[in-house]
């Protein structure tokens, strides 16, 4: 790392006049928008997550408290451990580890055992962030790296069956998740074991809009209520702590492609169901909008969003997984440097003329 003069932003001026106490030399501008700091941005994300966490607690009760709490605590612990190992100043106060933990926790099923949360958090912070050099340098979304790690390591604990418990006092978790139901229905329809007329019944609640929208369906902790996600997500966009271009792109391409897939008979769910069902919205507003692993330019952000939405639908329709947000975000993260390069904005007044 080149350490240049700019790093020493402030140096006491030599030869300052006696009458000029503590004259300090620093580059302009000499004012800053005091309200904006990295920490403040992360706190904003936590505020935005509040309705989502609240809804998760309402639906999944203490399972949600346990899962999200454990992920936040272990993420912070992992952050402390890895920054220490790298001999770097501890920056837990910036809140980024807490955000990673909360998002990871909200993306897990209610039943995930404690070691899944702990290992997932360690992988998120260690592999997802610290290995690249810490906050600001990671290529992939840390929470999704952690989730992918545990998903591949503990396929059974995180598979479709993990979401369902036949005997439970919580009625919601006795049903399959909407996307799993849809996947099964698509397979049954293809095999001819279910007739098209019976399809809506097979889908159960996943076939209705309002339960899906409000969150009266099974799923990962944070994804069930589209309503809560929209409230928190719009807050983030209005505060400009998340760029609206990304969720706009995800929803747009997700809606269009899901509509096309539905029309082609590839999926029993309509475009609207695909958008509000599963974690498409949660991913659009809270995961894909991670500033570090998304593009810098407005145009790049929109293209990134379009890509995430498209890959989500492709995975939902064609892959063996019912859901595709995690892989979609990770895949598009890898394209971000290219997107940045392709979308360098045209300066006002045009590009710098080349010297002849």
């Amino acid at each position, binding site marked *: 790392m080149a350490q240049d003069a700019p790093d020493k932003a402030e140096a006491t001026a030599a030869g300052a006049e006696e009458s000029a106490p503590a*004259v300090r030399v620093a*580059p302009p501008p000499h004012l800053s928008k005091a309200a904006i700091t*990295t920490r403040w941005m992360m706190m904003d994300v936590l505020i935005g997550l509040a309705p989502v966490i609240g809804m998760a607690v309402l639906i999944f009760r203490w399972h949600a408290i346990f899962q999200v709490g454990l992920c936040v605590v272990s993420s912070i612990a992992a952050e402390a451990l890895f920054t220490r190992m790298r001999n770097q100043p501890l920056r837990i106060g910036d809140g980024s580890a807490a955000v990673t933990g909360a998002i990871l926790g909200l993306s897990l099923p209610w039943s995930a055992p404690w070691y899944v949360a702990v290992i997932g958090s360690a992988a998120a912070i260690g592999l997802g962030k610290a290995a690249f050099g810490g906050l600001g340098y990671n290529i992939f979304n840390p929470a999704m790296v952690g989730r992918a790690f545990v998903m591949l390591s503990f396929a059974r604990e995180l598979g479709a069956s993990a979401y369902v418990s036949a005997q439970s006092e919580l009625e919601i978790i006795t049903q399959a998740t909407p996307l799993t139901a849809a996947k099964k229905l698509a397979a049954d329809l293809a095999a001819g074991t279910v007739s098209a007329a019976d399809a809506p019944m097979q889908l159960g609640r996943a076939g209705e809009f309002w339960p899906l929208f409000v969150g009266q369906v099974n799923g990962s902790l944070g994804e069930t209520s589209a309503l809560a996600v929209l409230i928190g997500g719009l807050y983030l966009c209005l505060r400009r702590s998340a760029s609206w271009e990304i969720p706009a792109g995800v929803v747009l391409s997700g809606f269009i492609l899901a509509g096309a897939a539905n029309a082609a008979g590839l999926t029993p769910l309509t475009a609207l169901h695909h958008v509000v069902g599963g974690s498409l919205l949660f991913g659009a507003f809270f995961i894909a909008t991670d500033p570090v692993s998304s593009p810098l330019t407005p145009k790049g952000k929109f293209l990134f969003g379009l890509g995430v939405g498209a890959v989500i639908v492709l995975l939902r329709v064609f892959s063996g997984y019912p859901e595709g947000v995690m892989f979609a975000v990770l895949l598009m993260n890898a394209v971000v440097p290219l997107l940045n390069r392709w979308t360098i904005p045209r300066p006002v007044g045009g590009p710098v003329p080349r010297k002849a």
Partner: protein
Amino acid sequence: MTVAVTRKPVKQRRTFSGGVHPPERKGLAEEAAIEVLPTPAQVRIPLLQHLGAPCKETVKPRTEVALGDVVGESTGFVSAPVHASVSGTTGRLSVTTLPNGRHVSVVPIKSAEAQPLSGRALFDDVFGGEWPTDGLERHEPKQIAEAAHEAGLVGLGGAAFPTHVKLTRNESKPIQTLLINGSECEPYLTADYRLMLEAPAPVISGALLAQRAVGAEDVIVCVEDNKPKAAEALSSAAEGTGVEVRVLKTKYPQGGEKQLTVAVLGKEVPTGGLPLDVGVVVVNVGTAAALARAVFRGKPLTHRVVTVSGGGIKQPKNLLAPVGVSYQELIDYCGGLTKEAARVVAGGPMMGYTIGSLDIPATKGTSGLTVFTHGEVRRSEETACVRCGRCVDVCPLNLVPTKIGLAARAHDVDLVERYYGSACMECGCCAYVCPASLPLVQLIRLGKLLLQRANRS
């Protein structure tokens, strides 16, 4: 001159895209009427006060000079002569370091006991009395530009570009619009505001002269909407003259030539070019007033209005001060520094330079002196860039500041170039909003320097 009979109704534009709203803090000195600084015991006239070639001294040491005598003559077209700002005796040539880091020769002048102009008489000579707005036909365009050159006029907004260069007609690039810049978008600074309020007549008169010089069809005086009184004063002074007063949205950096051109006319100045390239000339209000004085009274630019403000100044003021007076004297006249004073800046907070010594002479481009307290200045603990893109959102030139800055830090010249680093005008919006407190302006300056070096070899 032919005036177009049918003109398309142009949508009234009032701003540009990007930009920031820093706290204005103009209230500190806004109500302070312009005071005339008592003639200092000594002034030191820098021989380079503009963008361009330095002057050559024309007086020997221990020579008697009168107020307004030339002490340095220009050595090229893009250059402006400098004049004695007091009557007195010259001393030996010495060298000083200006806030921008340039070492320049200075001609010291010890003031004589008797000064031809001081106090109220000086103010009236600079701003008072009658300023004609008609009968300007007897002034040939060439003569106006010539008068601007002889008076040593430079842009008083801060960049100090020699005015006669702007006012000299170029047949291949006709000028349609003359913009008189009264935006004064830098926080704290109120020098232009007081000038517009207290002396609107010479501004309008100078605007008409500049219009005649460049042959522009329209003259628009641009004032931000946080200065309604100034706009009012100018409007009544401009009545019946054909000069339009346009009120713009308050936003930094509205006063940048390129932003103003976009904001008012919707015309983009080509990167690396001048407003001239799109048929526009931009002249600061102070420069316009000085032009009127040069043409109608034959007086060179020896004094200017300087704002001395900030939480670190006991009595913030707007001063009519001679060029060459030391910053120390300006501060002393304003009651000195307070205990909390932490940083002295030549200019405003967004683009001004910090200075390490107060023993620096004010130049024609010194629009203000701002002294910050610890509470006012930017905190500077840098954290990692999280690529939030706020700098991209606020960049008035539509650049990607963080990319340019970080590329410069890594000495990646190609990347600086790919992201159009050299187009940056260093307005500081990016660093102002950066949540990670990256010194973006400084890094981009480094990048521009690296680019320049790479292109040279």
